């Protein structure tokens, strides 16, 4: 983990609201980068003091490149959207824990579940874990215009749905997930997406006794674990029955059984 300069290799649209940044960043690879980790990226807007946490969407260790899948949401991501080939961006990374930490050595089958923007890190995990495990990707989108992250995967390994039926079945992602759990119970479920989705995936996993890890989001300050602003509530044997953990340094991936949604 370090602060290093990345050079924009490519910036291109990914779907209606998202774009893909390809970044060459040698420094990042000195300590390694893994699926599930994120980078804290300084946007080129001097009035915005905070970096933006963005998950790693793809890793090319040979070219020393990573790709990010970014939703243009507010001013910070808008500044990123405007970055052009050749521009320099300061990255802090790779930060946080990796999905692989939650996959037991003896695991065989891994289900990866993503919702919307949350598809990015699980697609990365799909690419990284497929060599070792039997992986399937479950993805839920609002509508067909927001679909990304499915290219180049064998059809039988992808289960994609949409809220309005404009892409795949009209369903929540937990529907195909539940169906496949019945058919081919996995050893681990790894998920990233909006809180209601994560809660539903967590419930489903618990019901079937499957280990499940979820990747959480929170507004961040330092990204390093020092400022304690990025807290998420976890079960704890405190008088209050809970404690706060740091999404940036203790996560972003947590054992679903620990999280208080």
């Amino acid at each position, binding site marked *: 983990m*370090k602060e290093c300069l990345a050079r924009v290799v490519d910036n291109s649209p990914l779907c209606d609201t998202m774009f893909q940044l390809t970044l060459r960043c040698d420094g990042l690879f000195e300590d390694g980068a893994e699926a599930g980790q994120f980078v804290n990226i300084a946007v080129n807007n001097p*009035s915005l003091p905070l970096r933006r946490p963005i998950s790693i969407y793809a890793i090319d260790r040979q070219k020393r490149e990573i790709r990010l899948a970014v939703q243009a949401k507010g001013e910070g991501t808008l500044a990123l959207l405007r970055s052009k080939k050749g521009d320099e961006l300061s990255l802090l990374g790779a930060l946080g824990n990796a999905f692989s930490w939650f996959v037991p050595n003896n695991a065989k089958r891994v289900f990866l579940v993503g919702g919307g923007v949350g598809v990015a890190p699980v697609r990365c995990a799909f690419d990284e874990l497929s060599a070792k495990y039997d992986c399937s990707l479950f993805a839920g989108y609002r509508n067909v215009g927001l679909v990304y992250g499915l290219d180049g995967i064998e059809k039988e390994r992808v289960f994609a749905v949409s809220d309005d039926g404009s892409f795949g079945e009209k369903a929540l992602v937990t529907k195909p997930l539940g169906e496949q759990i019945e058919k081919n119970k996995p050893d681990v479920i790894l998920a990233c997406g909006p809180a209601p989705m994560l809660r539903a995936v967590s419930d489903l996993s618990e019901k079937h006794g499957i280990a499940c890890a979820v990747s959480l989001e929170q507004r961040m*300050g*330092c990204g390093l674990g020092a*400022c*304690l602003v*990025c*807290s998420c509530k976890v079960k704890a044997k405190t008088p209050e029955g*809970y404690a706060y953990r740091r999404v940036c340094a203790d996560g972003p991936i947590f054992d679903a059984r620990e999280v208080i949604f």
Partner: protein
Amino acid sequence: MPKLGVEICGVKFKNPVIAASGTFGFGREFDALYDISVLGGISVKGLTLQKRLGNPPPRIAETKSGILNSVGLQNPGVDAFINEDLPWLKQKDLVVIANIAGSTVEDYVKMAEKLAPTAVDMLEMNISCPNVKESGVAFGVKPEKIFEVTKAVCGAARQPVIVKLSPNAADIAENARAAEEAGAQALSLINTLTGMVVDVYRKRPVLFNNFGGMSGAAVRPIALRMVYQAAHAVKIPVIGMGGITSGEDAAAFMLCGARAVMVGTQNFSDPMAMPKIVSELHRYLEKTGVVDVNDIVDALVMN
């Protein structure tokens, strides 16, 4: 080679750049990026007598050139700090300042007593944290209260006591004098300015705590003015902070009368900020032909 060393209350700092409380934890995380021994000192995350869980998230909001936080003093408690963090910190070569916050005068006194026999170099009394309703606010705003709590802590402390002033005040000079009269050996300022950020689409404040403490470059002119006023109201040394992002910013605070500076929010924008600020300050002295950083302290010429 300009000299960067400064001395405050007999404590020697190798340079005047100190990590501001709450933005640097107990130093371990940033030490993974650079050896924190390059810094003059560290004021550790605000400590309370008992462990505190802090406020629910979101605890941070961004605004133009600034941030607001409402951490609510999450910390492991003063005992855990002494046992688990201080030994590690003392292996490092920098001044260690324990930042303490209490809900009552007794809390402060007890903490000062617990810290008295330790290797902590200085105490910094956070009497102004606006996030915890039952703590800071009452002490930090009125001069009578500042006097009362400062006097009590100075009686119990073995180490030099720095009183950290709140900028949410109509007359900072009055508050500075109250702390000095009560026996404070130094002052630091500014703590955060109380503010609010609103999400107009959710029609709610962004912070769970609704209000938060503002810091970062946006507050710098207010901080500079207050540091100037406080430094000219008292004889004890003043440590300046509030929006420092560069060596030149640090110099501005010292020109206004600060003997040293603290850097907070900029550590988030740039994790390498403090080592950079040390070398930029060095370069500023070289460029302006100053041989000792102490020579710029209070060197501002008013128009």
